[in-house]
């Protein structure tokens, strides 16, 4: 069978056909697979493109979010800087020092690269530079020249009280390009510095890098900074004004005090001269007066024999008037001694009630003669630290006066009231009272109230002056309250404990 050539040819043909069929089948299958693969590649490519589109969306969103975050971070940092600067401004009250507080690190933190501050000087009619961060001397001189040449425009910006920036230069007073050229910046903010009073100015901040733009947030922060500077300047101005006023006040007080001290010194000198004079005269008067009184006594005595009645009467007058004169001179001497401090108070602790009762006993006859009622509510347990004899003189004078100026059947009352280290003793009467104008001068020497009783009864006018001097020598106080026809109350403060004289 295999030797038949035809058979071999048929078989070869069959095999070839089979191979062709198989190859065709494989090609068809492969082609299908390729189609599927191409489809899959297309799908992957599409997915990749879709993902790329999504990536674009992501980066676009991300950059916007980053911008917001950046702006937020910048604002927070800016606010921290402003807080620190505000504190620094508050710690100084010198106008120029306020600008010195602004350092380059503050400006860096605010995201700025150049800062200048100019204040308009009304007198010199020019802008003065108060702050410079980021400019060398030559650049600064050029800027100042440009500002001087166009100062009216800058004053106009200040007058508007509104921040102008490369972002919002609506007014167009100075075109953006001009500002950028003068200050050599890409972006800028010009914010007026406007204290309530005093010189106004402006704060300039700028950036030189194209990729550091000034934002709305920056505008707000710079406006706040300029406003803080203005507030600081205002505070400095107010402080300076207050300080000057205080200095003037202090100067005036010092001058017045000096004048007053001089006057007091002069017064003391005069007072001393007066006391010395009174003292000298009193001493000089006392010696001849003693002789007069002595001779009058001898003449009145029986040693010279019986005198005619008329002579005796006149001698008795001489004797009585001499006594009054001696009494007056003694009072005067006491007053001058007390005023000059030559009298030392021999202080001891005494019961107030006993002191008063002793005095009342001395005056009991006068009280009885006028049928006056004297009441006393002085507590028995109050002790005063006083010179006994001097204070008794005070009570004798005051109670004596009360008896003298109170009509018969009247009343006199003695009361007390505690007052810290003192006791207030009040001596009230239902007498004729003291007119208002007399109350102010009643304690002056030789003053006598003009009233019918004083017209009739003789007096030296030294009693109340003596009383005042004695009370003051005890570091106490005396005053009077009175109504005419209703009576008077003399009140005094007496020490209950030892008072150390300062």
């Amino acid at each position, binding site marked *: 069978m295999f030797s038949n050539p035809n058979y071999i040819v048929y078989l070869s043909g069959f095999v070839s056909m089979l191979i062709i069929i198989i190859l065709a089948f494989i090609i068809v299958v492969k082609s299908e697979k390729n189609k599927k693969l191409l489809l899959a590649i297309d799908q992957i490519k599409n997915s*990749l493109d879709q993902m790329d589109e999504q990536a*674009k969306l992501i980066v676009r969103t991300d*950059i916007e979010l980053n911008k917001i975050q950046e702006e937020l971070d910048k604002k927070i940092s800016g606010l921290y800087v402003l807080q620190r600067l505000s504190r620094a401004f508050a710690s100084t009250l010198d106008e120029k020092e306020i600008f010195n507080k602004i350092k380059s690190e503050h400006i860096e933190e605010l995201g700025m690269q150049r800062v200048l501050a100019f204040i308009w000087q009304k007198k010199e009619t020019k802008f003065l530079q108060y702050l410079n961060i980021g400019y060398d001397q030559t650049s600064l001189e050029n800027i100042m020249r440009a500002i001087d040449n166009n100062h009216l425009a800058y004053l106009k910006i200040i007058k508007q009280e509104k921040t102008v920036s490369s972002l919002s230069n609506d007014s167009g007073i100075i075109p953006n390009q001009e500002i950028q050229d003068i200050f050599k910046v890409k972006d800028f903010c010009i914010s007026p510095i406007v204290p309530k009073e005093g010189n106004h100015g402006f704060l300039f901040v700028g950036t030189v890098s194209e990729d550091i733009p000034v934002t709305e947030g920056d505008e707000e922060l710079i406006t706040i900074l300029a406003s803080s500077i203005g507030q600081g300047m205002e505070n400095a101005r107010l402080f300076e004004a207050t300080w000057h006023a205080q200095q003037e006040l202090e100067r005036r007080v010092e001058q017045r005090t000096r004048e007053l001290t001089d006057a007091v010194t002069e017064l003391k000198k005069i007072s001393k001269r007066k006391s010395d004079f009174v003292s000298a005269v009193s001493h000089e008067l006392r010696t001849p007066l003693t002789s007069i009184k002595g001779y009058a006594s001898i003449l009145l005595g029986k040693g010279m024999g019986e005198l005619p009645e008329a002579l005796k009467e006149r001698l008795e007058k001489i004797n009585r008037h001499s006594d009054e004169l001696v009494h007056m001179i003694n009072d005067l001497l006491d007053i001058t001694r007390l005023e000059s401090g030559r009298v030392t108070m021999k202080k001891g602790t005494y019961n107030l009630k006993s002191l008063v009762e002793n005095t009342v006993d001395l005056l009991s006859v006068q009280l009885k003669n006028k049928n006056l009622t004297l009441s006393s509510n002085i507590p028995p347990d109050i002790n005063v630290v006083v010179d006994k004899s001097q204070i008794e003189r005070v009570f004798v004078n005051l109670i004596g006066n009360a008896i003298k100026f109170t009509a018969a059947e009247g009343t006199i009352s003695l009361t007390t009231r505690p007052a810290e280290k003192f006791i207030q003793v009040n001596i009230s009467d239902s007498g004729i009272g003291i007119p208002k104008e007399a109350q102010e001068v009643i304690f002056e020497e030789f003053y006598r109230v003009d009233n019918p009783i004083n017209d009739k009864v003789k007096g030296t006018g030294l009693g109340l002056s003596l009383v005042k001097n004695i009370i003051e020598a005890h570091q106490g106080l005396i005053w009077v309250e009175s109504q005419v026809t209703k009576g008077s109350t003399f009140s005094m403060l007496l020490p209950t404990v030892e008072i150390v004289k300062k």
Partner: protein
Amino acid sequence: MPIYAGVGVSNNKDYKRAIAEAIYQTKNSLKENQISLAVVITSPDFAFPNLLKAISNIVGLSVPLIGVTNNAIFTQEGIFSHAIAIALISAKEAHFNTASSKSVLKDPQAGGDELAKQLLFGMKNILRRFVLFFSDGSITDNQPLLSGIQQRLGQSFPIIAATPASNNIETNKTFQYFNQEVLNGSAVGLLWAGKVNFGFGIKHGWKPIGKPHRVTSAYKSTITQIEGKPAAALYQDYFAKDIPELKKELRRISCLYPLGINVSGEEEYLLRNILSIENDGSLICRDDVPNGSRVRLMIGTKESCLLATEEAARDAKQNLQLQTYPKGKDASIIFVLNSASRLYLLGRQITKEIEIIKSQFPHTPIIGLCTYREQAPLKTTDFAGKTYSHNQTIVILAMS
């Protein structure tokens, strides 16, 4: 412990007082050990020779000093923008060389070579461990400088470096300190050798988003085309903004949405900040982007950023412990190189990074700075790898 170190910081405006205060704070950690090295980081307002003279007068005129200026100084006490931070290191058993190169602006490659040459002086038969160096902030292309160093030290020698951030936005100028000299346009560094343990971690925390794209035309740090279109079209497409609008928001876009270069076999993407967008649609990056590389837009959040800090600190700790015997010994000092972009993203939460580092190294003094670029090997466990230029990362270097 072969190394003792203390870090002190002061923001006193009077530099003499600030120095005294900072040095006083180092006493506790340094104890009675003799000072071998001073590392000084200050804000630019302190960059004058008298500062360095005053420090040398206190720590000793023969004590080598290196340092830089920076506008965000990291220490265990926090982050300072106007301050003096001084790290005093006592390393009796370890060897180190300090060096400076003043020609890195003119000829970075030659400058790097010169720096490496000085660093290697006298280190012939000593096991060299790693180099730490700082370059001027105004150096735009750092790759030749790095290549210059690698030519002498070897491609896989561990180099940890930083370009400090500047507060001079126009020039990016910073100052470098070398002994009693205040330099600029220079690089200063130190090479550690002998008995010194170190471990570092480097992370950024940014994640890829969107499709991968092929760089179809690029030279050094300029990407002209991506997938045949002007490179800026990528950003225009993602942010739906035209070029002038993108330019306005460049800082934000550059810091928050850098480009990530896929490095084959690595999980981490190498990030690139966009420094500028040209009118023809080219993107100028902070560092080189290889032609033909696959790049993706990257996105980061505060959380991912802080998580990266935690991972970097953990890596540094683990790597240090792998070398340290007995294991578990504390680090003596931590150097932190932290990208300025991270500060920008974290905003007011920036101090959390210090807290995170302190949670891993509770009693270790920290000194660090804010950077424009960080240079370190990509792998931290197998650290003897090629050193790359990174953006947006935090490098935590622990030494003991």
